[in-house]
């Protein structure tokens, strides 16, 4: 739990520093051949067929290929994969675009699309194994990225529950947390060397990852997340979450509280040191402000901190991807 005097800023020590010596040998970070527009062009092309995470894919394939797998199993396994969840919501909101209000509930999406359609969609994925390659340019692993995404989803949902939101409304918070960092994947996969340098610089510096992304790539994962969410027609709530989860104040009045909740969940996940998506910077001043604005007291935080690790481990167990080492 958060207690005692809090520093204004704090940078969590990275778990792995094995590449630090290599970083010092790398050439300057700015690649003059690439500008913001060329980055965006490649990112947009990549988003069209964005693959799923290798962490969840084994279980996804197993579930979808099992004719006896239940809809409950299907929903659970999909809800653990940020890319796949986004793709299912993309399909429902593309196909049913006349509904007016975008659908952000995976439960409703499965009812409407049907189990088979969702299975087919999942099976058509290629695995995002780039995150697991044995390379000197590995900013973070698929497992760590997945843990971070799931952690933010679980915390956001817990915050919504503790604020008294009805259970049916809590799923949207989970989905938003799960998807919040999707914008990092195209940056990392399409520009592994550049992104590695950005992450290593964050490792050494005192700035948040998104600020370093702008500095070196001209675009941050929030901007890329916005492109994904808009292209997938995920609706304004998720568009703004993916775009502004580092600065909820930039979101619309309608979605500000929602995005603030995810922003706080993200900061808390960094504080709890669960998972890693390249960012180590914890802004305690912002966290304090968000807690105050959202009415999140110490008791709530204790409750969250007590339950989140267990939920992550249960999900991990479900996926059966416990790996040696």
């Amino acid at each position, binding site marked *: 739990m958060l207690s005692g005097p809090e520093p204004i800023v704090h940078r969590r020590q990275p778990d792995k520093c094995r590449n630090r010596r290599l970083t010092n040998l790398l050439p300057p970070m700015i690649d003059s051949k690439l500008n913001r527009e060329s980055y965006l062009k490649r990112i947009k092309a990549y988003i069209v*067929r964005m693959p799923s995470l290798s962490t969840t894919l084994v279980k996804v394939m197993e579930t979808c290929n099992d004719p006896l797998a*239940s*809809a*409950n*199993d299907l*929903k*659970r396994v999909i809800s653990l994969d940020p890319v796949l969840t986004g793709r299912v919501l993309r*399909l429902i909101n*593309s*196909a*049913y*675009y*006349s*509904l007016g209000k975008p659908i952000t*509930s995976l*439960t*409703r999406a*499965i*009812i*409407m*699309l*049907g*189990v*088979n*359609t969702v299975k*087919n*969609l999942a099976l*058509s994925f290629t695995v995002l194994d780039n995150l697991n390659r044995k390379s000197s340019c590995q900013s973070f692993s698929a497992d760590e990225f997945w843990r971070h995404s799931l952690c933010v989803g679980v915390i956001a949902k817990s915050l919504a529950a503790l604020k008294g939101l009805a*259970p*049916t409304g809590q*799923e949207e918070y989970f989905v938003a947390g799960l998807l919040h960092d999707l914008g990092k994947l195209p940056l990392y996969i399409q520009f592994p060397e550049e992104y590695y340098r950005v992450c290593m610089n964050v490792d050494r510096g005192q700035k948040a990852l998104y600020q370093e992304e702008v500095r070196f790539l001209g675009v941050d994962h929030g901007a890329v997340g916005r492109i994904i969410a808009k292209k997938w027609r995920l609706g304004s709530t998720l568009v703004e979450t993916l775009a502004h989860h580092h600065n909820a104040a930039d979101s619309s009045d309608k979605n500000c509280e929602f995005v603030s909740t995810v922003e706080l969940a993200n900061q808390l996940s960094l504080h709890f040191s669960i998972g890693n998506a390249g960012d180590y910077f914890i802004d305690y001043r912002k966290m304090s402000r968000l807690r105050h604005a959202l009415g999140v007291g110490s008791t709530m935080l204790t409750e969250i901190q007590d339950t989140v690790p267990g939920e992550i481990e249960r999900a991990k167990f479900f996926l059966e991807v416990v790996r040696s080492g």
Partner: protein
Amino acid sequence: MDSAVEIKFWGVRGSIPSPGPETVKYGGNTVCLELRFKIKDHHRQIIIDAGSGIRNLGDVLAADHFVNGNFSTEIYLTHTHLDHILGLPFFAPIYFPGTQLKIYGPITGEDVPLKEVIGGQMSYRYFPVRQEELAANIEYIDLREGRFDLGDGITLVAKYLNHPLLALGYRIEYQDCVICTAYDTEPFYNVFSEDPADPSYDELLAQEGDLAARKENSRMEAFFHDADLLIHDGQYTAAEYDSGKKGWGHSTIEHAVETAKRAAVKRLVIFHHDPLRTDSQIDAISKRLCGGRQQEDLEIIFAREGMTLKV
């Protein structure tokens, strides 16, 4: 033609063409509907689905084609399961230069474009003529849920149904007439476990699933509310459905009747007959359901190949 729209049923069977002595009366060709709209000084034609029934329609159109020259038409596919597209390679107008054909079909989430999904059956491994060799100019257009102005005062509303593959139902409005199709579909139901003894049971999920299914069934009834004619899936009887057909994406005749009544439909056509359904069985079901007379305000008709209805 003194009505606003005429609907001819060129194929009424589901799943697979089912010729034989036991299907002579109601027909064995798979689904194909022809809608002819009376528009001032001419008629406009819209075809729904390209099952084996479209072959006979194509032969009639080909004869007209030789007399009247070039022509254009549009086909609205409800989905791309084989029984709804297998007649297309035998649709004669695709072999004539000057034929302008627009084929609309639902997006399904696959990355394969409609042209490839439909045209893929016209490759040498399946058929002696490749799609690229066709003389007609064929344009493929993706459809999704929505309301579309087709011109000539015709409005088409598309709505996704409940089928293992995304399938569209159509509500067609012209002048004061409303014609709806709702096949291949079954009632939405809660796919999530409702049994607390099930290890994967999740109370919230069960509640949300139930709510979502109810909501979709309400949307479905609103979709064909007050229709003059509803052409609805009636592949199974309730007994057949309950003996292992749930989840196959087809309705019971009993459900079609009940839902049509609730939606204040005027005429219901039971459509997409099971390939095992014999003429005598349909006659018996018709007698049982209607008791030799029409029910209250709802007229029930069992679709028969070659039949024409006026609206």
